[in-house]
């Protein structure tokens, strides 16, 4: 490849970083840039819960330091948001009003917290997090808070609750089993979960749902269908993630829930690939598209997208059925690998 090549990766998560490494290993000359909205270095998202509850310092989140990018001659553009892609002209439009030309592109934009439609009217009262900057302010609030309510709709909510308990908070947990993500919970699982949480002194509210949230001064009161009134200093909603693809809509790159790619992680445009949480990959066995979730999946996909971009034709292996063990609960999922 020539020095005129400009490979751009949108997203500084595991997918993006693995892609960049592979690109650099195989092409010493091309310009490689990573663009990402977040201003913090590449970090372990799953450790955020421990950071929020004050159990680890920010340094422990970091996967890769800024200097490592410099050493590999990878330009890191942090705090920059891609607003629009023009796949015909191969131009990215950034929110800070800069146009950037690419020759090949990997979209690895991950996902953002999902909010349940039934809860959108209370949006202002809910706290969600998926990034470092979300957690910086939250950390101080949690420090001061005594009572915390967790609206649990995904797998991370369990471990987060445990983390809060360890930090000596009074925690209430509302399970959203109807909307649970990314798997459906069986009644057997639900029982085990409840048992587990109770053993940690968590007040559990299963088979219930939010009717109303009120705020007076800095206290919230949640009124449930079953007439429970739960008081709280912070309400944290953890309902899984939805792929970050809004900026792609309207660009004529095919999307559904995520960016649609084939088993080679190619989009409908020749030089554009997608990987990680944002990609919706065609699974030849299922004959359908699946959004794949999880850190290691993202790493793997980043690598494969990069290799294919460089001319290889690697297929993402359709995952075997796997039993996934999570906080003592066995979850049957083929897409969520053990971390």
């Amino acid at each position: 490849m020539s020095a005129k090549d400009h490979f751009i990766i949108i997203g500084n998560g595991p997918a993006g970083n693995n892609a960049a490494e592979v690109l650099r290993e195989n092409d010493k000359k091309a310009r490689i840039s990573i663009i990402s909205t977040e201003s913090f270095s590449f970090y372990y998202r799953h450790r955020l819960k421990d950071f929020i509850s004050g159990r680890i310092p920010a340094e422990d989140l970091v996967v890769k330091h800024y200097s490592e990018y410099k050493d590999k001659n990878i330009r890191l553009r942090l705090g920059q948001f891609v607003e629009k892609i023009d796949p015909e002209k191969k131009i990215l439009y950034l929110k800070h009003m800069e146009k950037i030309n690419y020759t090949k592109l990997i979209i690895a934009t991950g996902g953002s917290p999902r909010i349940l439609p039934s809860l959108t009217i209370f949006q202002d009262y809910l706290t969600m997090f998926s990034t470092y900057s979300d957690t910086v302010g939250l950390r101080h609030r949690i420090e001061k808070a005594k009572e915390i309510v967790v609206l649990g709709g995904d797998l991370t909510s369990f471990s987060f609750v445990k983390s809060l308990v360890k930090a000596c908070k009074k925690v209430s947990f509302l399970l959203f089993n109807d909307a649970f993500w990314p798997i459906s919970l069986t009644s057997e699982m639900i029982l085990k979960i409840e048992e587990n949480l109770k053993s940690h002194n968590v007040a559990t509210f299963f088979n219930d749902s939010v009717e109303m949230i009120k705020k007076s001064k800095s206290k919230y009161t949640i009124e449930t269908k079953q007439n429970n009134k739960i008081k709280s200093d912070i309400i944290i909603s953890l309902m899984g993630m939805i792929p970050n693809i809004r900026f792609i809509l309207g660009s004529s790159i095919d999307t559904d829930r995520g960016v649609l790619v084939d088993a080679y992680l190619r989009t409908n445009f020749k030089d554009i690939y997608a990987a990680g949480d944002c990609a919706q990959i065609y699974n030849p066995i299922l004959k359908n598209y699946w959004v794949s979730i999880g850190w290691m999946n993202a790493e793997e996909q980043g690598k494969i997208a990069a290799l294919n971009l460089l001319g290889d034709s690697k297929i993402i292996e359709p995952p075997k059925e796997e039993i996934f063990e999570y906080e003592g609960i066995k979850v049957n999922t083929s897409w969520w690998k053990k971390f």
Partner: protein
Amino acid sequence: MSNTDIVLEICGSAGEGTISSGEIFNRYISSIDFEIMSFDTYPSEIRGFGKCVAHSRFSTQKIFTPGKYTDILIALNDAHSISQLGHLKDTGVVIYDSKPPKYHEEDKSIVGWMEPGMISYGIPFNDLAQKAAGNSRGRNMVALGAVCALFGVDHEEFKNTIIQRYAKKKQIVIDNNVNSFVEGYNWANDNLTKIDSISFKKGKNKNEKESIIINGNQAVAKAAIDSELHLYAGYPITPATKIMEILSHELPKKNGIMLQTEDEISAIGNVLGAGFAGKRSMTATSGPGFALMTEFMGLSVMAQIPAVIVNSQRGGPSTGLPTKTEQSDFNAAVNGGTGDLPRFVIAPASVEECYDGTTLAFYLAEKYQTLVVILLDFFLSNSIRNIDEPTPPTEKMLNSNIAPNEKELKDYVRFKETKTGVSPRSIPGTPNGMYTTTGLENNERGKPQYDGKLHTKMSDMRYRKLNSALNDVPKPKWTGPKKDIDVGILSWGSSAGAAYEAATIANKNGHRVAVLSSLVVFPVNEVDLTKFCNESKQILIPELNYSGQYANFIASYINRPVERLNMVSGLPMASEDVLSKIDEMIAS
């Protein structure tokens, strides 16, 4: 309570109000009792779109340098501001226009170049200014509004500063500026989440003491007026021009004259003419002009006529780097000219000293009937400080000419030999005081004469004048330990500030570092110099020139090796520069 020490830069292109917004910010922050040291840069030669930077350091402590690394960068113009990122701190803040009229091309946007760890706040400068005033002129005020919101500056009080700044303008101008400011303030409050920790809140509410905000050139001009300057003659040249422009306003008020001459030769000629006629006069120039004045410098000394020349040094040689700072005219100031040419050279280290050095220059020139060169530099000329109202010259300093008495006028001998070397000088209009002076070697009556004995005697007299003046000038400033000095810094001119700061830090770190610097760099006070050097294990001479002009000069007085720190980057010396050299010396 810990100190607040913030470096702020506003960068834009000419015409965007960069400098004026910096000025307003300085004025307000000064009023809440911060120390200010500020340094603006303008486009070097072109009008229109050149780059302007208003750089200011604000501190709740005494400071001597403008600070090398920036905390807050306000980018009024993205393309120009990119290079300023080079000295933004790792965790520095950038404030930029998030809604310019069109997209920046690749790599022409400031945000695109920010290093990880830096923080940016996008504010739609343009949109908000349009909203406030119907045009984009108030972008700078929008930015200031946002700065006030983000960094805890009282916006009501600040508004008054804006109103004062534009008091002489039409109401609409005042309104547009204030409204733009308010838009910026409100928008930032409503839309931005602060993620940095910079704050101006530690300033006292109101500054009680009488302080003024001026730069080196203004201080020189003010001092000249206070010294009863009558004639300023000059030819425009960066970075000295401003002195001329200020005096063209101020002199007429005092029945004085600003004469714009055809060249620097004429300028210094006029200065000597007026000096001969008994009035205080001066000129200000930079390298190329100073070179042209050389012949007249000799005449001033030889004919014993007072003359004051300000040389604001640029980068040299020749036309050099007109808008960069350097201290490379030391040789020219101290030794420039032909023959044995004793003269006073004054090198202020700060804006305060620009004032004091200038009043001293007029005093010395008149009393000792000779040439005084004041060495400023681009940085000092343009560096802005808030200082206490300076002490005007005393009566004695204002009337320093030693005139002949009646008895002496009976048979007036103009160049009569005296112990001090100073012979009474009569002023035109004095009956029986007539004499002719000349650039030729001359006898006591001014008659040209070339015999060796006479030349020896007269040379001696000219040098004697200077030596007798050593008691008449401020002693060198010795800061830091008086004994057992690890590193003794001999500093001069504007880089002395960096030396003080570096020494202070080094001493806090447990070293023994002292600084000796003198307002008058020639003649040399050898007593203090020797004492200082005797107490110092190592000597360091930091200066902004390539060849170590001061170091070479001082070497002949102190007779021992010195460490040098020479820089010609065009930037003022920073305390970091001196400090790392000190550490290196102590480590070795």
